[in-house]
């Protein structure tokens, strides 16, 4: 699976695309594949503060709930409302179906996250394939 090289990744299977102070966040293809059909997304509110490593929302498949963990700290500037009625977009293309956009309070947090190749290696180790 090709993980976009310009994204950064967390061990909780979120991705973040950062440019300057702006960050866009979603979950990885591996995450959507593990979850199965996604039927519900709980989005944060615009204006809410998110903290790196803390829960900011959740995604649900038919059989399970999964918390979403913020890859970096900041303030939510936009959420992808489409996901309230069409959560399956995440299954269709997890790296394009963004969940929230944030204004980063500390852009240096992003540099410390996994690169695409490190994340790919991490997934291989975790899953055995």
């Amino acid at each position: 699976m090709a993980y976009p090289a310009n994204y950064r990744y967390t061990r909780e299977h979120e991705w973040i695309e950062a440019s300057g102070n702006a960050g866009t966040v979603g979950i990885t293809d591996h995450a959507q594949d593990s979850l199965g059909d996604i039927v519900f997304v709980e989005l944060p509110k615009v204006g809410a503060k998110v903290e790196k490593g803390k829960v900011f929302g959740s995604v649900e498949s038919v059989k399970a709930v999964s918390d979403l963990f913020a890859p970096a700290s900041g303030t939510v500037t936009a959420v992808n409302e489409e996901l309230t009625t069409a959560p399956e977009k995440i299954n269709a293309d997890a790296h394009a179906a963004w969940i929230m956009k944030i204004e980063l309070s500390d852009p240096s947090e992003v540099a410390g996250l996994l690169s695409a190749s490190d994340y790919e290696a991490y997934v291989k180790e975790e899953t055995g394939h």
Partner: protein
Amino acid sequence: MHRRLGAKMVDFGGWDMPVEYSGLIAEHLAVRTGVGLFDVSHMGDIQLRGPGSLQAVQHISMNDASRLQTGQAQYSALLYPQATFVDDVIVHKFSDNDYLLVINAGTREKDYNWVRSQAARFDCHVNDYSDYYTQLAIQGPRAEQTLQKLTNADLSNVKFYWFTWGTVCGLPNTLIARTGYTAEDGFEIYVPSDVATSERVWSEVLEAGREFDILPCGLGARNTLRLEGALSLYGHEISDSINVFEAGLDRFCKLEKGRFLGSDALQAVIAAGGPERKLVGLEMIERGIARDGYRVLDLAGQPIGSVTSGSPAPFLKKNIALAYVPRAHAEVGSEVAVEIRNAPVKARVVPLPFYKKPKKQAASS
């Protein structure tokens, strides 16, 4: 074999089981509109044989087995003296002196020990046949057409909750029952459990169902299908701390047949005015998914019960749940709330079952 088909596996009560193959929703919809195939070999099979077998069954099982004809089956439950559940069961009458109980996987050993000890005073033998059989379930409106290709038995003559014997995939004397756990038409077949035979039958069923877009189905779809049909799951809607009337299974409990294990306690519940709590069906009115174990609240925010099983319903396209609530909140139309991640989300009590399979059309296409 399941892994070769790409199954995601999970540990289910000590058994290594496939949760889903191609995807839960696709598998669920295949059963509702076409045909799906389940490996349900984890289920248990207990045989009671002998002149006292009917008496034994009548003692331990709450439904009235004396109403069964040879070739007929009935849903029932084994009760403790307190009228709570040992397990639910399907009772099959092979002959006046021969009955088969099909029971759940997770409770197999407990059930077998229970049946053996409770049947000991009757003139019958109790045998655990679970390991002899691989049980496959073929479920959906196209199940009959699929299985008919593989058997000489005339399936159109087997009514719902009846069974017959026939040659299936070349295996003689195979038990074919028109039963299931999906709230859809379908069959369960019992074939010898050696790996080579089981795998061959599995493959032949998939081949026979190919023209109907058959899918192998896992535990995930099995759960959402039975939930839409409001079928109980042991450890959720029924357990050793829940009684028959609370669970709403009155119609399978025939007190008029005479005393049996649990009947005295049930008479006491009736004398006390009925059960304090009842199992109800909930449909979410506000946005959210109620899940197993979530608290149910009244509209003032007070906890009044909990969800026994809850999930999105892939065919009905609603979020549904079964829950225990006090009698006062059990009326259809009552509004309650389900606590989802610390916030109350409104739900309404709806009639059960959520889904009923369509009546058979006179000419099947």
